[in-house]
Each structure stands twice: as structure tokens, then as C-alpha cells.
């Protein structure tokens, strides 16, 4: 007697595909936020499963800080070419050149926060009314309360105290002009689910996710990749270490972790036994204050 039960990965996959199709049907101009990180790569994979053999009903949108890992950009461009899908790039450099934002100064300058303006400008320029993102509720405290169809007002702001209730799988995709949604199909996935799914589906990821001998320097207890745009402080020096990245964001704020996990199985074993969250381990941007993520999200961050 068959049990007619899906595995947890199949159930999460079905939910994500349902969300993607519902969003495409309810909104006129969606876009998929594609950073070249594992969560957005999984979203791209799920999108193909939801809509093939037709083309995706939305373009990919990348906000390029100009400070990305070169591997990320290479991976992005190759994937887009392979799939024949559309890519739109919002450039933080252009936002700086046009005076929309001012570059931070000093050795700890980061363009992470500047991305919000570029993202909102790009959304407005193209008239996007729904941006699909890879955020998960297990990532961070403020995100645990995020809706799957998360409403943004005409200023791109999130109002966490006044969110629309979300019932069953009946998503309310109604908007007024100028407002938009952030849609999070991976809301109910954990970091481990993502990795197990990557393995089940044989999804290709950038090499940065696997442990290799890499050049790093230490700052505030974290390991970073050296780059021309990150000046070293007195006492800091570059050395070689076997590391991998648990998240891939802007180079100025994405730390590496020491690891021996050179392949997928080893990464899964490592993640399964990890005792620190992935953002806690590798993201300096969440460490500024108790509510760093909440504040950035209210402004319109990813």
C-alpha cells in the first residue's frame, strides 16, 4: 500500500514551485533576484522546473556592487548564456557615479548598504512589481516573521508590524501602483535543506562554496578574501588557509570559514553539525546591532 507521502525535500520543492507559478500569474512584471549565491541558484533551478519547456516569465536581476567575487560574475554570465534567459544588472557603481549614493570611506568601507538604493532604482526603472528572493526564515530573527508574499510600500519599505496575514497557500498578490512584493519561495527551507536539495538535484554551484587553499586575511575575528578595493589595516597580512564560503555576498562583508569540506557530501556533513548560523559565521553586515537586518529590510534591502 503506497503511503502517498512526499519527502520533506519534495514537499518543500512543490511549495516553492506553487509560489513561483502563483506569483507569475498574479503579477505583471516579476523579476528573479539572482546573486550567484546558492539560494538564488536553487531559485533559478526551481523556476526552470516550474515553467519549462517555456521560457521563464521573468528576467534575472542582479544588483552588482562592483565588489563581487570574480567567480560569482563568471558563474552568473555562463548560466544566463546557457539557459538563454534575460539578465538585467543594476550597478552600484552607476548609482555612485550618478550621485544617488555616496561611497563609504575608510578601510572598512562597504557597498553592501548602498545596494538598497540601486535595487529600488532598478525596480522603479523597469517597473518590476514582484522580486523573487532567496531569503529563508531560518537565516535571521527579523526574517522569521517575514511573509512569503511580502508587501513593500511605494518607498520600498517593509512594515513588520503591519504585514498582511498569510493563510493556507492563498497568496494575496494585489497591489496599488508603485508598490511591489518581495516573494520568498524558500521561506520554509533551512540551510541544510538547501544543501540536501542541491545534492538531490545535482545543481552546480560556484567553487567558492567548497574548501580550497585560498588567500585570506583576518579582521575582527573573521577571515576575508583580499581584494584591491579592501585596503589592509596595520597589523593585517595575507596568508593561505583552507577555507570555504557559507554565504556569498559582497567581498567586503563576506567572511570565509575554515573547513575541510571539499565536496558536497562533506559540506552537508559540516552544515548538519554546524553550531553557528551561516549569517552569524560569515556576515559582518548583521553584526552592527541587535536589529541590523530588520533596519536594512525596512529600508528596502533584500
Amino acid at each position, binding site marked *: 500500500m503506497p503511503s*502517498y507521502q512526499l519527502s520533506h525535500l519534495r514537499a518543500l*520543492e512543490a511549495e516553492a514551485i506553487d509560489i513561483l507559478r502563483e506569483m507569475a500569474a498574479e503579477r505583471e512584471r516579476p523579476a528573479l533576484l539572482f546573486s550567484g549565491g546558492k539560494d538564488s541558484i536553487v531559485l533559478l533551478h526551481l523556476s526552470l522546473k516550474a515553467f519549462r519547456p517555456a521560457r521563464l516569465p521573468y528576467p534575472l536581476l542582479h544588483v552588482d556592487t562592483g565588489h563581487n567575487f570574480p567567480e560569482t560574475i563568471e558563474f552568473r554570465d555562463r548560466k544566463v548564456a546557457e539557459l538563454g534567459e534575460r539578465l538585467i544588472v543594476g550597478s552600484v557603481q552607476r548609482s555612485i557615479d550618478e550621485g544617488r549614493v555616496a561611497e563609504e570611506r575608510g578601510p572598512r568601507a562597504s557597498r553592501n548598504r548602498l545596494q538598497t538604493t540601486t535595487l529600488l532604482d532598478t525596480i522603479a526603472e523597469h517597473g518590476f512589481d514582484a522580486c523573487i528572493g532567496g531569503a529563508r526564515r531560518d537565516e535571521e*530573527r527579523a*526574517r522569521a516573521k517575514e511573509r512569503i508574499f511580502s508587501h513593500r510600500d511605494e518607498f520600498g519599505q517593509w512594515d513588520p508590524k503591519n504585514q498582511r496575514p498569510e*493563510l*493556507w497557500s*492563498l497568496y494575496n498578490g494585489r497591489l496599488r501602483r508603485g508598490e511591489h512584493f518581495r516573494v520568498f519561495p524558500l521561506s*520554509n527551507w*533551512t540551510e541544510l535543506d538547501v544543501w540536501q536539495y542541491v545534492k538531490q538535484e545535482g545543481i552546480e554551484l560556484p567553487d567558492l562554496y567548497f574548501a580550497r587553499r585560498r588567500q585570506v586575511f583576518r579582521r575582527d575575528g573573521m577571515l576575508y578574501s583580499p581584494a584591491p578595493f579592501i585596503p589592509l589595516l596595520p597589523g593585517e597580512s595575507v596568508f593561505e588557509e583552507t577555507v570555504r564560503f557559507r554565504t556569498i555576498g559582497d567581498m567586503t562583508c563576506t567572511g570565509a570559514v575554515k573547513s575541510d569540506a571539499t565536496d558536497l557530501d562533506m559540506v552537508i556533513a559540516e552544515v548538519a553539525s*554546524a553550531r553557528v548560523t551561516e549569517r552569524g559565521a560569515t556576515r559582518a553586515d548583521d553584526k552592527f546591532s541587535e536589529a541590523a537586518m530588520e533596519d536594512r529590510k525596512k529600508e528596502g534591502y533584500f
Partner: protein
Amino acid sequence: MGEIVDTSKGIHRGIEEGRDLLRFITCGSVDDGKSTLIGRLQYDTKTIFEDQLEHVEDVSRRRGNERTDLALLTDGLRAEREQGITIDVAYRYFSTPHRKFIMADAPGHIQYTRNMVTGASTANLAIILVDARKGMVEQSRRHAFIASLLGIPHLVFAVNKMDLVDYDEAVFDRIRAEFTNWAAKLQVRDVVFVPISALNGDNVVEKSAKMPWYRGTPLLYHLETVHIASDRNLIDVRFPVQWVIRPQSAEHPDYRGYAGTVAGGILKPGDDVVALPSGFTSKIARIETADGPLDEAFPPMAVVVHLADEIDVSRGDMLCRPNNQPIVGQDLDAMICWMVDRPLRARGRYALKHTTRWVRGMVTELQYRLDVNTLHRDEAAESLGLNDIGRVRLRTTSPIFYDAYARNRTTGSFILADEVTNETVAAGMLLSPGQ
């Protein structure tokens, strides 16, 4: 576990990797030890990370609390931490080798009904916390009623703080008897009572040596093994069409697939189907996913259905079996929960979403407002306010294809949205005509 149909990409009839998914909701207030229980479940399943624990210890210390306040783990927003209250439903995750769990944690006091209804809408199981010293209080009955209204098939009463009543069997028995008498009115199939001490971990993960009189299983074991496969309706075939895949490319000039999520029953190639509202009939030619063809599809699988004939089917239509069709109607009877400050008034017009279809609807009659504490029906009520539950009659501009909520939670549910602000204002559960 089950046998394998298609080994190519892990589409199994049974459970691959031995793990499935259970969604549950925890109901209770901080005073009942809910946060402690959640913290205990997450901690004992090694789900709380060191940086999260450090953070909570740090904040507890700064506030001058003697004990690490595990409630801080669930209070994600700045305002919640500042005011020491929980504002919104939070979703938490943990897993064991047997199951992955999605836990909706609804706050105890503020906007309770709205939040609990939201969390309960997707839950297979509800844990209702009861303080052993206080027994069944008004709040416990309210929780049980909402769980039953939302069609949650499994209820667990976690009788907490047994350590404070000397692990006394008589206390536990009295609480169980109290509830069993009252619960005869509710429609819940499966009710279980577990005596626990969340603080000391008794009967949470491990069976407690202090309560040898308790013959049941610890709470986590129950969560891991409760039978959820029969919770879905596998009888009535219901396939709301969500999206039509039409590549119109050189490679696929005539491809036309109906994408959607199975809402009920088991679909098989060769089955006769009827499309609603058109009434045209055809056969299922094949069922596909990106991983290849399937020989059956069941809820909640997301699939693409191909029909043998070219009939006109679009988003919002529903495929079902000719000899087992849903109710088709535009005069609807429903229980609704009102979710915004601006009250519902009779003759109010709203946008109504049911499966993949939006229609316009008008509330033609408020039959009664229900007191969730006493279950008293106030038939003189003229409006529903925030957190109120009532029975209404609605008229829609075009028919919807539905089942009673008690028969199918997907085809029996709807939401109402304000046509101006677009906010979701109500959650609705459909009744069959004459029910």
C-alpha cells in the same frame, strides 16, 4: 519505506531518506511555559545555534534577568524585544532523523485569534499548552476551538509544569476529564494528552522517570510518529489550474500543459476529467514534472497535466472527475475570521480569492458572531471586528467550485481582500449548503 516508482530523480511513492514534513502550531502564553518548550525542542534537537544562544544570553544579562530568557529566541522584531511582547506569528524549524518540522509560534495575547488562525491554517497538528496548576482555562478552550474550526486533525494537550504539582497523576487525570467532557462539541479526530515539564525536560524528548504512571510516549516521539498521511483528501480529484504552459516555440509548437498543485484526489493518466466551469470533458493524456512523466499525482504535488483533447482551459478553471464534482455556486455559507481594525458590515463588498481564482463578493448576511470562549452565538450582532469569528452568507459575481472545508481544506478555504487597500481582511471556511 514505500516502493519506488521512478528512481530517476527521487519521485517516490513512499518517503525518501526516511523523512517527511510535519507542520504544527504551538498555542499558549509565555506564562504556560511555551517559549521554554519551544526552546527545549530546538535545543534538544540541536537546532539552536551557538550565536543565537549567545545573543539571547547576552540580552538577558543586559536586561538584568536572572535566567536566560528563551522567549528572546522567538521575538525577532525590535519592537517585540523592547516591549517584551510577541507581535506576529514566527516560524521555526527543527528536524530529527524521522521528520522535518515547521513550527508556527503564535503569540499568546495580542491579536491572538488573527495570529492563531494564520498559523493554524497550514498546520497538521496543534500543541496546546496547559498549566497543570490552573487546568483548562478559558484560553485553553479558545485554542482548542480555533484548532477545530481550522480543521487541524491532530490535537496535543501538553499539560506543563507537572513538576509544580508533584508529578501527580490525579491532577493530570482531572484536566483530561475536564476537557474530554467539553470537547464532545468539537470536531477533532485525534486528541492526545502528555504530562510534561518543559523546564526539566520531563516527557519532552525522553520519557520521564518521575511519572511512571504515564503510559504514553514523550511529546517529541508523538510528533515524529503521528500518522499524517490520511490528513489530505485522496478521494475527490481536484486540480485548480494555476498557469498554462505554452512555449509556442519552434521546438514545442503545440505544447499545452496545465500547471498546478493537486488540491485533492489522485490523478492518473487515462482518467476521464471534466473542466469547470466549461463542462467540457477529456482524458488525462499524461502528467509531467520537470523530472519526467508520473503515473500518479496526489496532494500537494506541483505538476503539469496534459489533456487528450484541445479544450479551452485557463487559470482559475478546475479539473475533476465527471462523477465526482465539487459544489458549484455563488451563494456561499461560511465561517470567517475578521483580521483588520475596520469592521465587517453587512453588504460590504470585497475581492475573494478561492484556489487560483479571484471573484468579487458581497457579504449579504451576518448570521451570528461567535464568542470563542463560550461558543455562544450572538445572532443580534451587526458587525465583526478585529479577531471576531462569525458565520456569514456571501454572494459572488461568478460561481466558484468548492467543497466544504471539513472535506477539503484547500478547496474549502478562501480569503477576502479590501478592494481599495488590497489588505487581506478575512479568512473563510466554506460550509456545504444547508450545513
